[in-house]
């Protein structure tokens, strides 16, 4: 069936029309022929029945007067009907009376037995047997045999004519079919061609022309309308796209401008920072020199003029020396800070466990004195960083944790969180967040921002062991130079946790 389905609609239409016409014609012709043959047989039967009646009636007188010759003469009139081959009359007792035989017919066989009136067709013959009656009394019987050759010849002729007319009708059907199908198939074929053009070449300007008001016409109109709508939509889309492109271009240029501005500001900022660092370095370096002189000379005075100075003089000299030392410490811190900002980082894979060990070694006396428990819950990773600076970070944080703790049982916990383990401050989705936690005095919320400011101290100068107040500033600087961030969480009176990240690269 597949090849049939793939045939053109034109062939299908013509084919179906011709098939239907052929079947109808064939059936009606066959039915007509059968009916004609049947009615011809009936007509023949009636005709020969009447003939038998007529011959029988005419035979009554010869029969009753026992006149065989006249009987034969009467039957001889059957020669006028060439289809009658044989006629035989019988008297009332069933004896053969008179007969007629067609010239070229030899048989005298009587096929029908005497009895009731009978007719039947057998082979090429019609057999008729009728009784001869007069006034209700049976005078005899007549048997007639007729040839059906004429009937068959007529039927054959009719079949020939019917076949001829069938062929002519079929030819006309094919002719009409091909004309009609053209009318029906043309718009469909056009529609198919247009569809192919649209789907194949993407040409939406294709249109189908149909004046028909039938379903195909509706289909064609619908198709055209659909294409119109698609074209309209395409135009609108094109318009929107152009507008969007313009918008993007505009935004991009604005962004570029902003980026440029930002880059410039950054460069300026960097320049300023650099200048500031340089300035800090120079200033601190230069400031140190006279300070050293003041300190040395105050020592000289204390040593050389010890006997000449009274108690008050000594006190003031000590104060001068203390202030000088403090000033020197401050300048050192400043120098260190500017060095931290200026020096190149020596980034290398660093095992943080070694770093912690190093720091704890340096501080072990202090830790033991304070009785502090240092906890490292799990093995720390190896990261890419400047190990010297990271040692400084951990040393500063641990020093602070040790310093600002007033509890009886002091502890420090050093650890890290991986992505997904920390809370809302997880700024590095792929790396680690390190922390140093203590159960110290904590930091009030209002001071939590200012702890990273240089020389900012929250307590009296000598309280909690003193110091310059620059440690957390160094830590912040180092972390930032590693591309990381530092922040803290603290509950005043309970403890503080410093978190920081390192963006320079995670090794393991």
């Amino acid at each position, binding site marked *: 069936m597949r090849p049939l389905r793939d045939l053109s609609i034109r062939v299908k239409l013509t084919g179906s029309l011709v098939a239907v016409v052929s079947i109808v014609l064939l059936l009606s012709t066959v039915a007509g022929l059968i009916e004609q043959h049947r009615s011809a047989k009936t007509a023949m039967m009636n005709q020969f029945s009447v003939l038998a009646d007529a011959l029988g009636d005419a035979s*009554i*007188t010869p029969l*009753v*007067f*026992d006149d065989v010759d*006249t009987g034969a003469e009467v039957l001889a009139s059957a020669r006028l009907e060439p289809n009658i081959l044989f006629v035989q009359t019988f008297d009332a007792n*069933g004896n053969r009376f008179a007969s007629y035989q067609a010239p070229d017919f030899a048989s005298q066989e009587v096929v029908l037995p005497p009895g009731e009136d009978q007719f039947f067709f057998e082979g090429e013959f019609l057999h008729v047997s009728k009784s001869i009656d*007069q006034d209700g*009394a049976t005078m005899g019987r007549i048997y007639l045999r007729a040839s059906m050759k004429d009937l068959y010849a007529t039927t054959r002729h009719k079949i020939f004519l019917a076949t001829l007319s069938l062929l002519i009708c079929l030819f006309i059907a094919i002719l009409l079919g091909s004309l009609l199908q053209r009318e029906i198939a043309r718009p469909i074929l056009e529609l198919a061609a247009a569809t192919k053009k649209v789907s194949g070449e993407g040409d939406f300007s294709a249109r189908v022309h149909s004046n028909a008001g039938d379903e195909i016409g509706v289909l064609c109109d619908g198709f055209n309308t659909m294409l119109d709508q698609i074209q309209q939509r395409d135009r609108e889309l094109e318009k929107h796209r152009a507008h969007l492109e313009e918008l993007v271009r505009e935004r991009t240029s604005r962004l570029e401008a902003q980026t440029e501005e930002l880059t410039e500001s950054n460069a300026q900022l960097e320049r300023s920072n650099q200048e500031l660092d340089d300035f800090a370095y120079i200033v601190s370096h230069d400031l140190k020199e006279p300070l050293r002189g003041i300190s040395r000379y105050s020592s000289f005075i204390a040593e050389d003029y010890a006997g000449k100075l009274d108690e008050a003089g000594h006190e003031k000299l000590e104060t001068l020396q203390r202030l000088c030392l403090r000033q020197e410490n401050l300048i050192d811190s400043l120098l260190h800070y500017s060095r931290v900002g200026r020096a190149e980082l020596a980034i290398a894979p660093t095992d943080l466990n070694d770093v912690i060990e190093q720091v704890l070694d340096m501080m072990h006396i202090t830790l033991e004195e304070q009785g502090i428990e240092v906890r490292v819950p799990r093995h720390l990773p190896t990261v890419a960083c400047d190990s010297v600076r990271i040692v400084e970070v951990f040393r500063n944080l641990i020093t602070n944790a040790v310093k600002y703790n007033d509890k009886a049982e002091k502890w420090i916990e050093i650890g890290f969180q991986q992505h997904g383990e920390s809370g809302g401050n997880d700024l590095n989705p792929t790396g680690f967040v390190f922390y140093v936690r203590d159960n110290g005095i904590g930091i009030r919320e209002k001071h939590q921002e200012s702890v990273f400011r240089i020389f900012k101290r929250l307590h009296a100068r000598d309280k909690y062991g003193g110091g310059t107040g620059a440690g957390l500033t160094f830590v912040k600087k180092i972390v930032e130079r590693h591309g990381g961030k530092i922040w803290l969480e603290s509950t005043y009176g309970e403890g503080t946790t410093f978190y920081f990240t390192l963006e320079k690269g995670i090794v393991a």
Partner: protein
Amino acid sequence: MRRSLSLLCVLITCGLLIDARTLDAQQPAPQNEYDIKAGWFYFLGGLIQWPKEPFKGADKDFVIGVLGNNPFGAYIRPDGNGASIHSTRITTDTIQRKSIKVIQYSSVAEFQNSYSPCHILFISRSSAPGVIGETVQARVEAALQKTRGQPVVLVGEAENEAESLAYAKSGIIICYWNDLQEKRVKMVVNDTLAKRGQLKVLSPLLRLRIVTVL
């Protein structure tokens, strides 16, 4: 005359008997001459047309007169008020759907005295028992004389064709004769005379080979 008639009967019978041996075994025994003639009354009733009312009472009864000896015996029997035909060919009590009435005139004298009109008057070849010296000719003449101008079919019987022709010419409308050669009864029909007497003999009868039409 009577001798020759008896001889004819014997001959016909013998001839038929001899012939019967060669005939089909199914064929019945040859018919008696009067068996045939009795049956023919019925068929003549159908093959001859009488005027509308030939005589009074003709519409009720089909009247057959027999002049001379009635030779039909059991072939035409009295039946109730009328008679019925019991021939081999036909058994009936009506002709032209009328009751059959047979009137016997034993002698010419009786005929002349008591003749009443009839459809067919059969003039017998033989005289009735007890009537002596009455010839066929006398009966024929009496019949002709008595029925002149009336629509009566006179049926006679002769010994041979010549006699039959002679009778017919003299006025008998149908005259039977026995063909000894063919061993069958034939007849001469005087159609001219019949027409004159307002009788119409139908063509099927006239067309028969056994009928000589005058």
